[in-house]
């Protein structure tokens, strides 16, 4: 029996230039059907790849994860028996619409970037003169100089510098919503108990932390360390530890 983890996607996550690039590629590949767990897993692994490459912008990534989490939630509702007949009536959540808009926005700049790159290549043969000015032309004579700059420009520049930057406190976020940190929090929870209720454990956390924890959970699922049950949409999630043969249990 085919495992749901056996993705057959042949995805090399390193080649993607960002999460929207990844999502666009997956979504537009006809042969792939987007089962929510697969998508979640891919996204979770990709976030890890980004973190390893040092390209993770936590604020941006978390926003992305929240959008994907909303998508997954919507998809799981669509898959519930009884909802299917009403498929036409199910309004996609605003978050999903935003995700689509963001994907399309990204795509525009990806495509424009390709045009720019080609154009850059076509122009590289032209070389400009970089020789310094002949000494006799180098300095403007004070006597003949005229006003060309507005002094307010200096006042504005100094005003910019006087303003201390507000602390967006990224260090704090990095400390609390690190994907790795959530992984280890989950692992330690699982080492203490073989099963626990997600809300009991993490219900107090803020939304971003919960979203990242869900993705860490997907990662643990992919690694065969945990599974979870959720009997109804938006119902309680029970997380269970897995010890060996994840295939046997997962299937």
């Amino acid at each position: 029996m085919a495992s749901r983890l056996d993705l057959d996607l042949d995805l090399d996550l390193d080649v993607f230039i960002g999460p929207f690039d990844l999502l666009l590629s997956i979504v537009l590949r006809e042969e792939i059907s987007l089962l929510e767990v697969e998508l979640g897993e891919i996204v979770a692994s990709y976030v890890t790849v980004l973190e390893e490459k040092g390209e993770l912008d936590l604020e941006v990534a978390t926003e992305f994860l929240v959008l994907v989490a909303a998508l997954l939630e919507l998809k799981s509702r669509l898959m519930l028996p009884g909802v299917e007949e009403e498929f036409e009536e199910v309004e996609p959540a605003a978050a999903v619409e935003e995700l689509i808009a963001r994907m399309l926005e990204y795509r525009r700049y990806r495509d424009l970037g390709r045009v720019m790159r080609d154009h850059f290549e076509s122009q590289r043969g032209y070389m400009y003169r970089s020789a310094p000015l002949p000494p006799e032309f180098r300095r403007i004579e004070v006597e003949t100089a005229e006003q060309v700059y507005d002094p307010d420009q200096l006042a504005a520049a100094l005003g910019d510098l006087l303003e201390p930057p507000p602390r967006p406190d990224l260090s704090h976020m990095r400390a609390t919503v690190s994907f790795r940190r959530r992984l280890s929090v989950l692992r330690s929870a699982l080492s203490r108990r073989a099963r626990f209720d997600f809300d009991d454990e993490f219900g107090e956390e803020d939304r971003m932390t919960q979203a990242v924890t869900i993705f860490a959970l997907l990662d643990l699922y992919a690694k065969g360390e945990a599974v979870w049950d959720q009997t109804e949409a938006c119902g309680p999630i029970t997380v269970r530890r897995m010890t060996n043969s994840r295939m046997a249990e997962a299937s």
Partner: protein
Amino acid sequence: MTTGPERQGEPAGVTDPAQPEVGALARTIEALLFVSPHPVPEMALAEACEVELEQIEDAVAELEQAFEPGRRGLVLRRVAGGLTLATDPSAEAAARRLLSKPRTPPLTQAQAETLSIVAYLQPVARPEIARIRGVSSESAVTSLAERGLIEEAGRSRFGATIYRTSPLFEKVFGLDGLDALPDPSRFDPTPEDEREIRERLLSAGEQRADQ
């Protein structure tokens, strides 16, 4: 009309050394473009030469013919809102050998995406670039700034650096101005694109479920 002889080998056009190639004003403009470190707008040429703009325009037209690609080792270009001289691309390899200057690396995809965001949305703050790309764009922004293609244009209310493209950007991209950027509307998503993505995103995975 001839299409021109072979572009290499024997001396061709030099017949009468005493005859000026172009008029005196065009020759002065040629000298000004040579000596100026930046592209020169026609208005600035008119002021420097103390003549009317129309006379400059006529002389520039004359120069444009003299510098028609293939005639000389240099070409006349309109970039960054002004006129400038550049080498003909056919001399690139020899010039790089002479200056021991390797070809600059091509833009990476991350740089190209970042540059197109800055070019079309400028002025734009770094967090906005990251938001659109979905990844931290710090290294792409830094290398584009180091290459001189983008530059700081102030700070946002939140202290983030704001970027815009530089005059060098227009120069190396051979753009007469930002208006000469390709029309971005040709990359606007169609309603079909949008529908396809929505359907694919929301398709519940029936095929898989059948297995």
